């Protein structure tokens, strides 16, 4: 019983171990030039070194800040809009083109436009990431609302709930699992876009800047260390949302 509980708690680490194991195996197999694919240990050393000597922590914080800001903006815009869109087919069909259009356009292609709109600096990066995140969140929320169970909507209507109330009292709750899917998608998307923007718009800090620098200077251990840091950050942010969801959506599947 106790062993089982320990195993349960250990499950998330199995993934980490598997990933590192695969990496180590690939590196050790010598299939690739060790310069190109350094062993995980080298990357780990680079990671530690980064935290100790090279302000990796600061870059980390900057990226987290940008990601959080853009996610927050994305959620604020997309969740209410998604609920409205999902509950009204006419609006949805009318705006579907715009949503799918921008969802399918690479953010990197939009950099020039965002530079024009928001100027250089943090604002652009946050705006472009918020834009990307809000599109996926919007999409997911609208979907959740559209697939919510109709009986509950009818029940609310017959109890005298106005259309607006139904949005908040039924559709929002019914689509809550899907809203969380959206937010978890959104957090990953905004992290990715922030990093890409730091890489390709240019930035004096952040994980993306570190990534492109280590690519430029061919410091592969440091590059993989940064990728690992970014991925772990993404997992952690996802984990936070998952925990919130578990607390909130107790009725899932029932």
């Amino acid at each position, binding site marked *: 019983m106790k062993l089982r509980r320990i195993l349960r708690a250990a499950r998330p680490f199995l993934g980490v171990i598997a990933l590192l194991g695969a990496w180590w195996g690939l590196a050790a197999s010598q299939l690739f030039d060790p310069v190109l694919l350094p062993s995980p240990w080298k990357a780990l050393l680079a990671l530690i070194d980064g935290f100790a000597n090279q302000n990796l922590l600061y870059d980390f914080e900057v990226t987290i800040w940008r990601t959080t800001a853009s996610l927050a903006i994305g959620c604020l815009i997309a969740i209410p809009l998604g609920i409205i869109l999902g*509950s*009204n*087919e006419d609006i949805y069909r009318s705006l579907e083109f715009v949503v799918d259009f921008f969802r399918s356009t690479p953010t990197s292609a939009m950099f020039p436009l965002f530079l024009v709109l928001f100027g250089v600096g943090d604002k652009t990066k946050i705006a472009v990431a918020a834009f990307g995140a809000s599109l996926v969140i919007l999409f997911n929320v609208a979907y959740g609302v*559209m697939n919510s*169970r*109709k*009986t*509950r*909507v*009818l*029940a*609310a*209507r*017959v*109890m*005298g*709930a106005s*259309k607006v*109330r*139904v949005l908040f*009292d*039924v559709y929002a*709750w019914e689509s*809550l699992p899907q809203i969380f899917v959206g937010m978890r998608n959104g957090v990953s998307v905004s992290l990715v876009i922030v990093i890409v923007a730091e890489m390709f718009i240019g930035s004096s800090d952040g994980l993306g800047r570190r990534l492109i620098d280590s690519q430029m200077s061919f410091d592969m251990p440091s590059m993989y260390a940064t990728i690992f840091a970014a991925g772990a950050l993404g997992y952690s942010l996802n984990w936070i949302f998952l925990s919130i969801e578990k607390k909130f959506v*107790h*009725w899932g599947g*029932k």
Partner: protein
Amino acid sequence: MTPLQDGLSFEHVSQRVERLPLAADRRPHVTIRGLSKRFDNTVIYDKFDLDIPRGELISIFGPNGCGKSTLINIIAGLIPADAGQVLFDGMLLKEIKFGYVFQNYREALFPWLTALDNICYPLKMMKVPNDERRARTEKLVARLGIKLNLGLFPYQMSGGQQQLVSIMRALVVEPEILFLDEPFSALDYEMTLFMREQLQRLFMESGTTMVLVSHDLEEAVYLADRVLLLSRYPARVADFTPVAAPRPRGLSTLSEPEFVRTKAHCLNVFQREVRRS
């Protein structure tokens, strides 16, 4: 995707129409004229007319799939009719306080609210302040004398308990029209009898117009002022029998010859209708 919206395109017009002659001299509360409804190729209603008198309890009795749930859904404006009108004696559909116990009570409860909050919900819609909501709910629970942990979520309850919560949610608002779609189907023996009495008491006290769907003939006749017997679809009014027994009815009513006769009559009509097709 948005049946509600489409529902509004159907005319719930607030105008009076000529009354059909009614036994009791009351103005009909709900008037249905020329109602037509089909699903795909199945005609459920075709030019269907009905008057539901104000302050009466109508039982609807009919075979499975004849369109009982469809009928009350149309009256409540939940699904659109293909043609026809539903009129509420000068009121607009949205002005009317409905109570509705769904046949499919499990899905109609909100799983994200506790049983208590589910029951309070319609009061919230009526903008009753929070304190009073609790108070009224507690009063209802006390009056019904039901032992139920209202802090549970619906999915933590047994079928019967969920149905009870659903009934309480419909009763708490003191509605103008109360629809009960097989409301006691999952209740245990005692609870069914008890809730029947409670419903009768409530009806007598409040004079609410009630529409009850039940497959229990005794129950249907016992509670009703009139029993509406429907044929298989396309549904026609096979009979609209008044039940004369005075209220309050009780155990003794069940054995009164008049009551037994009405019951037998209903059963006859029903069986004739069912076997016809």
